[in-house]
């Protein structure tokens, strides 16, 4: 009979205590692994969500707000900029493409973004079905938006006022879908795009809007005066060094780099991440302490058995080995359960992040994580087993024989 079989038999005999150690350990493993995944995957997901957007031009204010609102579409707009002057800022040889965006409405939680066809160049996007709009109140859907809304070219829908669900319906101004974009992996996939004229048309005086809709007004006469922001992509990374500073120096505009703001956000969030990591490690530590206490109690209660094994000829180190194997079995159980929990809940978390924040995240433990966690679990197990193992190795055989 091997030490493994004996350790397993001993664990089975006090399964309640063993299960508690495994569950607490699994919580620690899951917490540590979740933080590791978040730290690794969220920046990548954010970068994917940016698409080709290198810089956002918006009103004076928080650059991070600008990125969250106009690139990740995860917060509300803070103000407007004059469209013409904003586009003038983007008119620079270092800018490869620029497109204004005007936010205000949504359809079943998906943002309707008024823009120009240049947005396809900014995001390096192309049509999968149909074609780009040619007049107001026509819409092109991002791939996720089309799937979620169940719309295809030729279908109609009505927007609601505001970005949150439950707003007033603009039932007099139905949109017609003219095309669907191919997936880009960016936030664009979740959006409903339309000509920027449409946004102003719907929010303008009802009579004027009717005029425009009837074709009697026209874009020149009703040129939209403002936009939420201008999205730009650069020809060269060199532009990042100078262009945002030039724009920030103006009185009315500020420029934000999604990449820099995400890095700044990550730095700002570092204490939180470390705190969560600390909690995870605390759980793991409590698990190790629980296992150590449980092992010590078990070894103490099993002093007779262990001394007996020595009486039967087992070497003290073999007795210590049984304690170590027991601890390693508990650690292996905690590791497996913790990683299984992450693997099971990962797809749900990934879906939630994609739905809510448009972040495409792969929530699965990596081989490197698993190796590190296995090493950590083994070290914790051996540390937990050390004292009980030594005590077991020194168990008195005399005590048994005299019992």
């Amino acid at each position, binding site marked *: *009979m*091997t030490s493994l*079989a*004996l350790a397993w*038999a*001993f664990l*089975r*005999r006090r399964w309640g205590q063993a299960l508690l150690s495994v569950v607490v350990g699994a919580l620690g493993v899951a917490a540590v692994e979740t933080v590791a995944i978040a730290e690794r995957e969220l920046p990548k997901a954010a970068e994917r969500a940016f698409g080709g957007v290198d810089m956002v031009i918006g009103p004076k204010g928080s650059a991070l707000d600008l990125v969250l609102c106009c690139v990740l579409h995860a917060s509300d707009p803070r103000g407007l900029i004059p469209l013409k002057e904003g586009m003038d800022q983007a008119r620079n040889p270092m800018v490869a493409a620029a497109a204004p965006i005007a936010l205000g409405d949504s359809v079943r939680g998906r943002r309707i973004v008024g823009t120009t066809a240049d947005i396809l160049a900014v995001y390096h996007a192309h049509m999968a079905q149909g074609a780009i709009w040619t007049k107001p109140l026509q819409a092109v859907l991002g791939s996720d938006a089309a799937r979620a809304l169940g719309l295809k070219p030729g279908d109609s829908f009505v927007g609601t006022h505001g970005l949150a669900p439950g707003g007033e319906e603009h039932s007099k101004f139905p949109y017609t879908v003219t095309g669907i974009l191919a997936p880009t992996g960016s936030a664009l996939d979740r959006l409903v795009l339309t000509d920027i004229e449409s946004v102003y048309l719907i929010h303008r005086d009802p009579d004027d809007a009717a005029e425009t809709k009837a074709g009697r007004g026209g874009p020149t006469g009703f040129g939209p005066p403002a936009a939420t922001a201008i999205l730009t992509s650069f020809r060269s990374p060199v532009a990042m060094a100078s262009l945002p500073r030039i724009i920030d120096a103006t009185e009315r505009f500020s420029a934000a780099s999604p990449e820099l703001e995400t890095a700044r956000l990550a730095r700002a969030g570092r204490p939180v991440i470390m705190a969560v990591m600390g909690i995870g490690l605390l759980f793991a530590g409590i698990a190790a302490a629980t296992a150590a206490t449980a092992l010590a109690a078990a070894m103490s209660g099993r002093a*007779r*058995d262990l001394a*007996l*094994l*020595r*009486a*039967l*000829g*087992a*070497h*003290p180190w*073999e007795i210590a080995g049984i304690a170590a194997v027991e601890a390693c079995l508990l650690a292996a159980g905690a590791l497996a359960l913790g990683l299984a929990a992450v693997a099971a809940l990962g797809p749900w978390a990934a879906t939630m992040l994609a739905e809510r924040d448009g972040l495409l995240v792969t929530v699965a433990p990596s081989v490197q994580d698993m190796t590190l966690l296995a090493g950590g679990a083994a070290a914790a197990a051996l540390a937990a087993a050390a004292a009980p193992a030594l005590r077991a190795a020194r168990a008195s*055989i*005399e005590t*048994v*024989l*005299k*019992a």
Partner: protein
Amino acid sequence: MDASIVRSPPSLRTEGVLLERDRRVFARLPDLELTPGRIIALTGRSGTGKTTALLALAGIRAPGEGRILIGETDLWSLSAARRDRLRGQRIGLVFQSFHLIDAVSVEDNLRLGAACAGLKADPARLQTLLETLDIAAIRHRRADRLSQGQAQRVAVARALINRPALVLADEPTSALDDDNARALLDLLGRAVRDGGAALLIATHDRRALDAVDASVAMEVAA
């Protein structure tokens, strides 16, 4: 010493063994020579050092003086680890309370007897013991679910699994009624003789004394 117990070659030989308690010699073990198949009782009232003598003979507690030879090996000249191994391989122990490992089955208790001694249980030997001692039907039953009689037989089987040269039994009948005491002594006697081992029983139980070949009494040190 009783001359009738001297046989050759001996499984156990002792020379001038003095036993200590609190660093003071309190008892003397008569010189012994046990040959295979012999069953000897070590007698004496409670507190005369019978259990301490068994501990010394098993290589667990050092005697104050004297030599203990298992076969040709001087037990107390070995390192602790080698002494443990020798005990596991050459000496079978039967405890008063049987002391089985409760968490594992009957069969695994026997296997542990071999594994702890660094040996692999011989399947034929295992089967023979299970059948001889009438425990084959309960071989997969966990040890804490055995009756006292079953546990006794398992303890004897474990003591014999490694074909020991010497079996030491400490007060094996003290907690048993007459029928069970007789049964255990018959069982031990048969198993030891069939296995070619010598048996030393530490006891002050009259029933046990009637079942042995000879007896020697512990001597109080002067």
